[in-house]
């Protein structure tokens, strides 16, 4: 049983971000107050999700290049882990919104983007389950995965910049990068992002391995 270095690094970074995120000094801003610490947990989930979806799409592209079944299983595992992170990101965001904006849900392009992203990937899982033939299931869902990722990037990347948003950095709201994400917060934020991406990949890898074991057991 050897533990790969990146898994240790991921766990250490996440641990560091939890401890430092709760203990290190943060700038005191109106309305946000101490809830600004949620930045280390809420925003990192989205970074983690987008990277996992990106890895998933890359696996789908590689699947279409040679039709290696394991790539398809990897794509599914990565997408479902990304979905899990999206749920976590949405929950943390909703709690944060309740304390800063006053409601759990506002009509905001970023929130709509999230909702649509989740719908797209739920559709991906439904598509996977509705095809019985394994070969065509893998192929069709790989194609949809690529299409879905491109559309998701269009939605969460391009559209919010065309309209106003309550989120920092849009529609006249200052971005964290301007002044309030000061250097001490960066020291926690960026390691946390990397840590969650690594931990997410690890979870996805475990899911993939469980899936492989299940398939092997069925075939026996």
């Amino acid at each position, binding site marked *: 049983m050897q533990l790969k270095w990146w898994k240790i690094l991921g766990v250490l970074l996440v641990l560091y971000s939890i401890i430092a995120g709760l203990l290190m000094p943060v700038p005191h801003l109106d309305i946000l107050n101490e809830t600004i610490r949620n930045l280390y947990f809420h925003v990192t989930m989205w970074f983690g999700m987008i990277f996992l979806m990106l890895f998933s799409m890359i696996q789908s592209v590689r699947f*279409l290049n040679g039709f290696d079944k394991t790539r398809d299983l990897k794509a599914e595992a990565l997408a479902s882990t990304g979905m899990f992170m999206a749920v976590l990101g949405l929950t943390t965001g909703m709690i944060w919104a309740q304390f800063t904006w006053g409601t759990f849900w506002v009509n905001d392009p970023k929130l*709509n983007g999230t909702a*649509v*992203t989740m*719908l*797209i990937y739920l*559709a991906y899982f*439904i*598509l996977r389950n*509705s*095809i*019985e033939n394994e070969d*065509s299931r893998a*192929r*069709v869902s*790989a*194609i*949809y995965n*690529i*299409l*879905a990722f*491109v*559309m998701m990037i*269009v*939605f969460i990347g*391009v*559209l919010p910049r*065309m*309209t106003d948003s309550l989120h920092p950095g849009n529609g006249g709201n200052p971005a964290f990068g301007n002044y309030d994400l000061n250097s001490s917060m960066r020291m926690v934020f960026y390691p946390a992002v990397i840590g969650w991406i690594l931990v997410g990949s690890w979870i996805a890898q475990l899911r993939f391995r469980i899936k492989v074991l299940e398939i092997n057991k069925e075939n026996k």
Partner: protein
Amino acid sequence: MLQQVKELVLKDIRLNWRERYALYSMLLYVLSTSYVAYLSFEGVINESSWVALFWIIVLFAAMNASLQSFKRELNYQALFFYTLADPRAIILAKTLYNSGLLIVLTLISYLIYSIFLGNPITANLSFILCIVLGSSALASVLTLVAAIASKTNNSAGLMAVLSMPLLFPLLLNLIKTSQICLVEEELFLAGNQILFLALLNIACVLLSYLLFPYLWRD
């Protein structure tokens, strides 16, 4: 390749003209939904509802129209086509045909819809440009999704589930562009949005061009 695309588009036009009832059913759909909208709003409708309702009607008409596009190809005639044509030519031809069909359908819907519910659009030229680009973008996404959905057992049900979230950015953009067309005559104000529509169009066609060959060979 171009020759093949041309032949395939002509084939589609001829075949669908022979089975005109499908075209008539789409027109009837637009007519009846517009009439329902007219009855439920009692002829008085504010401008943003007008725009939203228009695009929702068009969206469902488009979904119905493109659902039928792979009815033939992926079933009994699939092998025959497989030996005859390049898959890239097939998807390009389908996308072209569906775009043309949808542009005509949307323009007719615009006419019928305006008769029942009035026409608050001031920038007619920009709006028609928006209709043309928007329907062809709708068509190019829906054609690929129809191809994907036709591979499953429950294609009609899955079509809506798969395409709705994918069409969200497009639909929002179309509604926004149309709202600009409500007030401003100048083309350049809607220019950014129209550029986005054009780019989305290109991206969708490119994706279908790249991905369809994998879907096709079974």
